[in-house]
């Protein structure tokens, strides 16, 4: 885990007991975590009685350093040893390290959930574009894999760049079974027909578009069979 030098300076400021006293330190850590989890807004940083003792410019740099540290630690899923070695390099006292780590661990699942909502996949794709060239190094018998891999890869990138969002996700399904009795040309048809509505969600939009279609029983069986195959392959991957 590496931080920029300005952030490291800020973190060092937080650990410096001449600039940030003990009580100010504790409330600073708590408030930072609360602000990042959107429980409070950062006006309370200016209004909190313990933090008033810290001078404004150092507070802003220290706060920025702390925010960078927390977000990088969540991104890299760092454990106690990495974080404490980095904080020791910034000359933090052991009790401050322990206090910080305890508060951090308590909030870690929520912070991870928060970070997960970003379409980091798109960022990764764009950053890994030079790695498309590594597909050329695959041996010749993977030629088909190579070309298919490249094509689907490029296609995904295209979609991301154009629309800024991924494909819609299916979250729910409604079904209706109709019985097709007759029509104007046939006196007796007597076929069951399924009307399926797939409810979807898309990123950024409050209401997703529904996908509606009708199908016969055989087609529905086909679809369910394919879904079951997909489930089985996931279960097989889960077992290995």
């Amino acid at each position, binding site marked *: 885990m*590496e931080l*920029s*030098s*300005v*952030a490291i*300076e*800020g973190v060092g400021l937080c650990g*410096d007991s001449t600039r940030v006293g003990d009580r100010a330190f504790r409330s600073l850590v708590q408030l930072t975590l609360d*602000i*990042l989890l*959107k429980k409070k807004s*950062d006006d309370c*940083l200016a209004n909190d009685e313990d933090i008033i003792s810290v*001078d*404004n*410019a*150092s507070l*802003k*740099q220290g*706060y*920025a*350093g702390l*925010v*960078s540290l927390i*977000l*990088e630690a969540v*991104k890299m899923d760092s454990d106690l040893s990495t974080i404490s070695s980095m904080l020791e390099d910034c000359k933090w006292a052991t009790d401050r390290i322990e206090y910080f780590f305890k508060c951090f*661990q308590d909030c870690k*699942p*929520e912070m*991870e*959930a*928060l*970070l*997960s*909502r*970003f*379409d*980091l996949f*798109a960022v990764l794709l764009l950053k890994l574009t030079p790695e498309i060239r590594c597909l050329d190094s695959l041996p010749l018998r993977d030629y088909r894999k190579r070309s298919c891999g490249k094509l689907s890869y490029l296609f995904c990138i295209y979609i991301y760049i154009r629309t800024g*969002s*991924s494909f*819609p*996700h299916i*979250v*729910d399904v409604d079904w209706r079974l109709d019985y097709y009795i007759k029509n104007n040309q046939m006196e007796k048809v007597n076929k069951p027909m399924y009307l399926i509505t797939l*409810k979807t*969600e*898309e*990123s*950024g*939009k*409050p209401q*997703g578009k529904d996908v509606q279609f009708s199908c016969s029983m055989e087609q529905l069986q086909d679809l369910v069979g394919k879904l079951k195959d997909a489930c089985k392959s*996931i*279960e097989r*991957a*889960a*077992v*290995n």
Partner: protein
Amino acid sequence: MEEVDNIIIHTFKQIGCDIPEEVSSLKEFTTALIVSATSKCLRMIKEDLQIPSVLPASMSSRFRLGTTLATACREVGYRGEIGYQTFLYSNEAEIRKLFMFLVENLPKESSESASEPLGSSVMLNRRISSELSKRLSRPWTPSFLKKNNIGWTGGRPQTWHREGARSVRRFCTCTLRIPEGLGDLTRKIPKDVKAYYNNSMPFITSQPHCYQDIAPSVLEENSEYLAQKRERLEKKIKQHLQSELQRTNVNAAKNIDLSDVVSSLSDSFSQGAAPSKGSRFTRTEQLQFAQTTEQISSQKSKNAEQEEIYKVKKRSVDLLPDAQNNISKLQSVVDSSAQRLVILAQQWESHRVPLIDQYRELKQLNANRVVVEYETMRKDVNRSAYTSRILEIVGNIEKQREEIKKILIDTKAVQKEINQLSGKLDRTFSVTDELIFRDARKDESCRKAYKYLASLHQNCKDLISSVEETGLILREIRDLEDQIEMESQKNTATNLERITADYKQIKDENNALTKKLKAATK
């Protein structure tokens, strides 16, 4: 049964129980052997069970050991009846069942992961599969029950998972401004900048347009800074390497030690080269340095040769003035060295012979060992023989089943015939009975005939009933014989004797202990 015993004994020998060579069937297993084999098997099945494998001398501890073994077997899953008596007063059939169960439950060789490569890709795959299995086991909840598409499960600490895409946001960043230089007290920050930092500059979390962009902006800022740092480092390394190469090319003749050059490089860059691009640089520098090292080493070897030649020539030139003396001296030296060579050769001969004998012996031993291993290997190959025998037995059983079916059909047919005949008999008898009785009232001979008929009927009935009884008794005899055989296998008499002896022993031990206790409390 012998094959089963052989397999069991072979497996025990493989897991390490020392079974004496004469024991070839389960009948010959002593109590001590049974106990040690069972405890070894249990230890292999479940690692944490601590059961002593040696039969203790005193009766009460033997009893305790028996009960612990029995409870352990039951824990591992043995379904049959088991108790201390199975181990201390054993009988062959029960022991065979128990050993078969234990041998089946021994951990298989293939599933023992001796040394799995714990590479990072393997760890990643394992994490992926565990996460997938966790998500598969979760029940489905509708999407409106998940705030921001996150579902939470479990107690403290809770785990989360994401479903649906409504709250997924684009990774939007914006530039952030942070105060700099406040940690360094020696640096002078201009007054107006300081005023800006103190009064107007917003907090880092208020700078992005919306709250959701804070995390992306901070992460992007960090990674940008790191990417710039890396580029600067690579440029520096490149420049330094180029300058060093110039210097070493000039100084090749002076035999500069290349390790010094490399260490000077590493000293000046204590932070270490950037990982990915650095590898390319190390490769180029290795190539360059390799060429110069080759040149240097060839030079060195040439130098050494020249030195040798020079030394020899110098010595001979020195010896030249006092030529005659020196020649005789040299001659004597040559003679003495030739003699020494001869003596050494003799000594070597005397050493060589015993060594060669030793070598031949070891070769023999090795050959024997290989033969023994081959024989033990042959036993494993016996599996095909076992499987063919099993298939034979299965075929035999099929044939027997067919025969049993046929016999059943025959029996049914015979029963039907019996029923038909007895029915016919009854009907015929009733008809004749009536007929003769009607005439019997008038005629004397008819009355006699009637009496004869009645007695005939009675006697035949008796005959039939006695035949049936004989059949019944024969069947009972067969059942009783089977029961006798089973009971005799249980060795009840010998076990009873042993139990009474042990009971007496326990009683004596108890008495001794109570006496000791009384003596101690007095």
